[in-house]
């Protein structure tokens, strides 16, 4: 039985190599319910790789990654039921309307796609007036908001985010911040890969820096001032091979 006090996201001794290139060496990380961890690191440090392993899109060479007690490598379908991924790709079919896109992903995930719920999700990201329009005519910001609506609709337990604020305007960023705070308050866990040190970091409870294939730093955000963060970041990412 899955223990309620277990962390929602648990990574231990994770190792990932692509052929002869070692990207992740010995990564360990835990995130509890109601907690958000910001994952920082230089380009190529392996942040996206780690996120993809958690999202069951890649398999580790060694070590374990699990979500809500389910192993990402051995029980991917159980993990997929509980996660929402917001990454670079928007997961949008340009020739379908906004509502049709949401309906497609919802039904494919085995859910009910009642028109009322779809409209609700669109309204949450302020896309309801465009529900019946083909996505091809949307701006980049609108497409990103639609992709967030898709995740909102899925009601995941864990959010895996890769630069989620990129491509959003001020209103969009504010909305996302509020949504993430509410998500945590509802008991969800968040792993957020980001490059920015700005106010989006306020969502995070902990800051982790990935360098040299491992978690070089894992500290509560309240204990790190912005200046210290910049210094620590420079320190640990210079250690990267």
């Amino acid at each position, binding site marked *: 039985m899955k223990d309620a006090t277990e962390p929602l996201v648990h990574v231990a001794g994770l190792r990932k190599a692509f052929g002869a290139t070692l990207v992740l060496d010995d990564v360990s990380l835990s995130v509890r319910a109601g907690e958000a961890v910001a994952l920082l690191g230089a380009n190529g440090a392996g942040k996206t790789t780690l996120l993809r392993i958690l*999202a*069951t899109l890649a398999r580790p060479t060694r070590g374990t990654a699990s979500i809500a007690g389910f192993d990402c490598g051995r029980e*991917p379908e159980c993990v*997929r039921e509980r996660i929402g991924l917001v990454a670079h*790709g928007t997961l949008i*079919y340009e020739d379908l309307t906004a509502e049709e896109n949401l309906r497609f992903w919802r*039904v494919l995930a*085995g859910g009910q796609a009642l028109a009322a719920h779809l409209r609700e999700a669109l309204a949450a990201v302020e896309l309801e007036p465009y529900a019946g329009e083909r996505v091809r005519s949307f701006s980049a910001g609108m497409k990103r908001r639609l992709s967030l609506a898709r995740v909102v609709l899925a009601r995941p337990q864990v959010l895996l985010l890769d630069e989620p604020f990129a491509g959003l305007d001020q209103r969009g960023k504010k909305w996302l911040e509020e949504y993430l705070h509410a998500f945590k308050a509802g008991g969800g866990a968040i792993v957020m890969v980001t490059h920015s040190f700005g106010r989006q970091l306020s969502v995070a409870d902990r800051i982790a820096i990935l360098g040299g294939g491992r978690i070089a730093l894992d500290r509560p955000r309240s204990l790190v001032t912005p200046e210290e963060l910049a210094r620590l970041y420079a320190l640990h990412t210079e250690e990267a091979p």
Partner: protein
Amino acid sequence: MRFARRAWILAWKDLTIEWRAKETLNSLFFFALLLIFLFQFALGPDRERLSAALPGLLWLGFILSGLLSLGRTFAGERDNDCWDGLRLAPGEKSAIYVGKLAGNLLLMLAVEAIFLLLFGVFFDLDLVAALPGLALVVGLGTLGLAAVGTLFAAMTAHVRARELLFPVLLLPVEVPVLLGTVKATEAVLLGEPLGTVAHWLKLLAVANVIYLTIGVLTFDVVLDG
């Protein structure tokens, strides 16, 4: 029931997008026309020679256009990381196989209907009498092509030189289907009763069962690879 809904939404998505963009269908209709010209030029004006070669030419046409449409099965998933989206959707991946297969089947049958029409017009054939038998043979053969083609399309979607590798992988496997359908079509066009080619039809049916079973059982391996 959930399986059926998921397969259905995938087929619906593919057909809706195809209907709105009309990229594949229009090009394939035109391709069919061009192939007819090609066959005529390659074989010359001798009507006897053309008549004898007709069943083979028909299936050559079906296979060539089938290669084009099957090869594009997952082209829509290349944008916006939708391929990852398919992998992330929880539930049996074989529903995606069945949905894609259904979409491919409908598309191929539409193109083949146009082919038959054009054949009838350009080579002055009366196909009406042979229609029921023809429908059965074409149905069995197209399913055989699509069942393996959909699986291999997923397999080659992210492999180097996929446009070349896909036909190279598919054609050797389709030899039994090609032989069976040409022989059966020959008989049907000559007005012979279907009983004379019952063994071929059984072969096609068995092949389809084998291909569909492998497809359903291994699609998640191919999608998640």
